[in-house]
């Protein structure tokens, strides 16, 4: 791809550092993170627990403050981007409000952001269609399965049309079968909405299946060990996971994870 055709950079981290001070001394959660995420990319962050993948996502979302380096989101600081409501965030748990219906939950950000009543209804209808939850508007969260709840929380993150979608192990608590389906749907959704997606996972197949770019991270200190640009086509049926290309990328991710691990253990 030539430089002219490359889509603009949406998220850029340069020499990003984050150190938590704990009772047991400082914890180096992120060390010298350099990463550019272009518009429309699907970027997965993968690594063992403690590698900083969630911390990095939260830093992009301005939920954690870096202690060094620079980070820009949509050309602004992370804090300005958050205030400009630049992203939708999906947590590991669906976190729907039990006292709101599914539609009420999707309307929550819209109410806070001051959309008109008519606009709220129209948007709620549209995003619930997008995640295939039409007909469940009036149900309460406890009446839905875990997978459906997570879809509702994705709808909630999509409702206000932020260009960036940040997802922190959104399917981590779901079983494999539901997870496969949601992965497929997420790809379709991504193709339709053209959003830039940051996706934290600890599943190699999930990362390889979904991403255009895979960021492999390793712990203590949390750092990037490999960045893989996926050669897989945009159109990805589930069967692609048996293809040699897929297996080759999965292998490289596994090697990256192991390298980080060995390096750490070898000291």
């Amino acid at each position, binding site marked *: 791809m030539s430089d002219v055709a490359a889509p603009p950079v949406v998220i850029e981290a340069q020499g990003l550092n984050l150190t938590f001070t704990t009772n047991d001394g400082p914890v180096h959660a992120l060390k010298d993170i350099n990463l550019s995420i272009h518009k429309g990319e699907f970027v997965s962050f993968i690594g063992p627990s403690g590698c900083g993948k969630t911390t990095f996502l939260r830093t992009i979302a301005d*939920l954690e403050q870096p202690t060094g380096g620079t980070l820009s989101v949509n050309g602004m600081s992370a804090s300005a981007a*958050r205030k400009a409501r630049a992203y939708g*965030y999906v*947590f590991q748990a669906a976190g729907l*409000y039990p*006292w709101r219906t599914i539609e009420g939950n999707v309307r929550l950000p819209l109410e806070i952001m001051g959309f008109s009543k008519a606009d709220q209804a129209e948007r709620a209808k549209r995003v619930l269609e997008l995640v295939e939850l039409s007909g469940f508007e009036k149900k309460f969260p406890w009446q839905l399965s875990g997978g459906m709840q997570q879809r509702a929380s994705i709808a909630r993150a999509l409702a206000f049309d932020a260009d960036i979608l940040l997802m922190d192990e959104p399917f981590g608590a779901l079983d494999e079968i539901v997870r496969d389906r949601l992965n497929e749907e997420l790809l379709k959704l991504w193709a339709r909405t053209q959003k830039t997606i940051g996706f934290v996972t600890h599943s190699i197949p999930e990362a390889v299946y979904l991403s255009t770019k895979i960021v492999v991270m390793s712990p203590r200190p949390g750092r990037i060990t490999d960045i893989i640009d996926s050669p897989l086509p945009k159109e990805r049926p589930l069967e692609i996971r048996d293809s040699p290309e897929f297996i080759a990328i999965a292998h490289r991710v596994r090697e990256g994870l192991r390298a980080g691990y060995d390096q750490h253990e070898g000291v």
Partner: protein
Amino acid sequence: MKSRSFPVLTVVAALLALWYIAVIPMNAQWEYDQASRAGRDLPFGEMVANTMAQERPVLPAPHQVVAELWRSTVVEEATGRRGLWRSGSLSNRSLVYHGLITLSATMLGFVIGTGGGILLAIGIVYNKAMDTSVMPWAIASQTIPIIALAPMIIVVLNSVGISGLVPKAIIAAYLSFFPVVVGMVKGLRAPDAMQLDLMKTYSASGNDVFAKLRLPTSMPYLFASLKVGIAAALVGTIVGELPVQEGGLGVRLLSGSYYGQTIQIWAALFAAAILAAGLVGIVALIERRVLKRMGMAQ
């Protein structure tokens, strides 16, 4: 329904049986004294029957209490000289009259206590200084015996010209605000870090976080507190009525003990218990309605 009422009725029956059995030894001495004074023998059967029908028993039998409750409510109002039927106003000898006096002070105290408790809880949750300064005082306030504090409150308020309903209500509020504070502080802090982070990603205002997250989350805690609070308000009112002597179930309790009218004491006691159960029941009913509407009761 049947499966639920059966165990309850069994316990009630067992308690009544225990009560009846206890009546015999508690009241027997008086019967034996009477018999020996009259110089005659008292057969066991007659003694037992007599203990159930004394005018001023040490421990009245359940049916005596029920009869007194009936007499001092329905019979008094329907046939008494000062009753509702003859005079057009409630008799000051009826438990309905005294119960209403207690109820009005209880409700006023409950409203003040709940309102104050919620405001204090909001202050404690949102203000670090209040968190560290107010909570210990709220806890300390509940360690002072209300029976010692009540007369002082009445006297102090009376000296600034406040008397009647308000001082009693303030004593009721003094007891009922505490469970509300504790429950609401817990409830308003109940949202977990993830839910607060979610609000932050919307860059929601403080008011939105309060109205759309903290307040709804606190509802189950609030209702649990209200049930304790309304019962505490009733206790506070009754204690407040003792020094005031302007009617109320507390006055009935005290005058019953002055004149050795044990049956009257027990009837007033049960009237208070019935009132408390009714109030707690109403709060529970509202709780079910509200939480069901909110989709939080399944």
